[in-house]
């Protein structure tokens, strides 16, 4: 094909793609559900839901391939040969003894740390292609130390911060409604105007979880969410997590709290010494299917 013909061909193809997209958009406006099989990401950019297939199988929401990580100036790697898949609608627990790399693994998944080897994929794309904010808008992360998440002057501001400042921001009424809901649900209404770092450990934990949940992320990673919570608050958190799981939002729980993990998780990944030791499928857990 000559250079002139190639140019004309590309022009015609681009025009055809534009027409195809506008046709699909018109069809969508009629309320029809469209399932499009497409290899061109640009062409499906306007789709509501994207399922990426590779080798005939859907790509996991979060995928770790041969991931390894070493902290600077440490001889021994913190993580080695991690291969894991996390589905969007699944609750997975990661357990293991102190220092086995659980928190490091979750920090790699949200891009706070960068893997020294291997690849991490989020919704089919390499994690390195996303900015921290893009990851944050997809994955809600609750740090093991809630203090790291709290930076506002009042409890109410803390819950509404993401809603107010993200993108064009939510409408003020919606923000106030959601703040009220989460303050009530996590029993923080009485502390509405308090300074977050003045709260007790359990209250800080509840606030950190509420602040992350208020953003309604697609997926959650909770690092030791039950630390400092009494039995009643643990039950409240459990009920809420079950509720959002029913809405199709998956999560990873890093926890030493065996009863809590057993009641919630469909799959338990056990780690030891920076490696995956086992993966126990617990499908059919009637704990949250009820």
């Amino acid at each position: 094909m000559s250079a002139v013909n190639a140019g004309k061909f590309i022009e015609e193809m681009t025009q055809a793609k534009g027409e195809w997209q506008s046709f699909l958009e018109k069809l969508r406006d009629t309320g029809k559900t469209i399932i499009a099989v497409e290899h061109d990401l640009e062409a499906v950019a306007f789709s509501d839901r994207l399922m990426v297939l590779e080798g005939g199988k859907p790509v996991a929401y979060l995928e770790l391939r041969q991931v390894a990580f070493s902290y600077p100036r440490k001889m021994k790697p913190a993580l080695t040969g991690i291969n894991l898949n996390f589905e969007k609608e699944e609750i997975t627990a990661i357990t293991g003894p102190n220092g086995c790399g659980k928190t490091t693994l979750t920090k790699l998944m949200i891009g706070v740390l960068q893997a020294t080897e291997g690849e991490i994929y989020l919704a089919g794309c390499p994690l390195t292609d996303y900015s921290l904010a893009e990851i944050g808008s997809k994955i809600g992360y609750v740090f093991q130390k809630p203090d790291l998440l709290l930076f506002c002057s009042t409890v109410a501001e803390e819950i509404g911060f993401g809603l107010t400042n993200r993108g064009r921001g939510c409408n003020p009424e919606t923000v106030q409604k959601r703040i009220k809901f989460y303050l009530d649900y996590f029993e923080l209404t009485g502390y509405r105007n308090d300074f977050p770092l003045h709260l007790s450990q359990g209250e800080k934990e509840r606030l950190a979880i509420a602040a992350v949940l208020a953003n309604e992320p697609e997926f959650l990673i909770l690092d030791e969410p039950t630390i400092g919570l009494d039995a009643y608050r643990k039950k409240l958190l459990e009920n809420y997590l079950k509720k959002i799981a029913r809405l199709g939002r998956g999560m990873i729980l890093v926890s030493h709290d065996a009863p809590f993990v057993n009641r919630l998780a469909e799959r338990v990944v056990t780690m030891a010494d920076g490696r995956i030791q086992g993966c126990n499928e617990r499908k059919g857990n009637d704990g949250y299917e009820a």
Partner: protein
Amino acid sequence: MKLDPRTKMVMVICLSCLALIYNTPGRLLLVLAITLVLLLIFRFDPSAVWGYLKPFLSLMLILFVIQCIFSPGGNVLLAVGPVPLVTDNGLLIGGSVVLRIIVVIAAAMLLTTFSSRDFILGLVQWKVPYEVAFMVFIALRFLPIFREEAINVITAIQLRGIELKKVPWGQKIAIYRQLFFPLIYGMMQKAQQLAVSMEARGFRAYPRRTYIRRLNFNLADYVVMLFFSAATLIFIFLQIT
């Protein structure tokens, strides 16, 4: 090379004095080169200095611009009407201020080539009261903690889905202003917790402190200390006269 922490402290003081006394980029560059070589000798990666300089970049830029504009004299390079804006003298002075900051920060990195325990021990053996030595150490320790705290807050904001780079400047300033007080308050709270923790572990419970280890000077320490002190005094004298 193994030197006593006190020798390294003397080296840092000498290099910082030279950085303050010199006001030409050429000489400051020479002091910076010596500092980087010393860092290499003490097995501190000189490229890591960049990481410590990053938080000061905006401050250095502001100081450079202010010095460029307000330093009088020299040939005018840029003028707005009759008002000279940038002169060659201003550029030299601006460059010197930036280099001075870099030298002081790089020289301070020498203090990280030994443990904090040795730092306190060194000062105490120089007859500095333990409380004062500990206070200096805590102040030094809090600087990286403050930096880390600021990084944590920025990370936490981004993890709430806020693309700080894309936020308009007005909103960005409002966000930072909103965060400033909690950040400072959080640090004060940490300092208070540290004070309580120290008291709880018997800090100043007894008038006399004892130490398992003692630092000892060897010949190399005396030679290096004498050389650095003498050289610094001579250079200062030459600069003044």
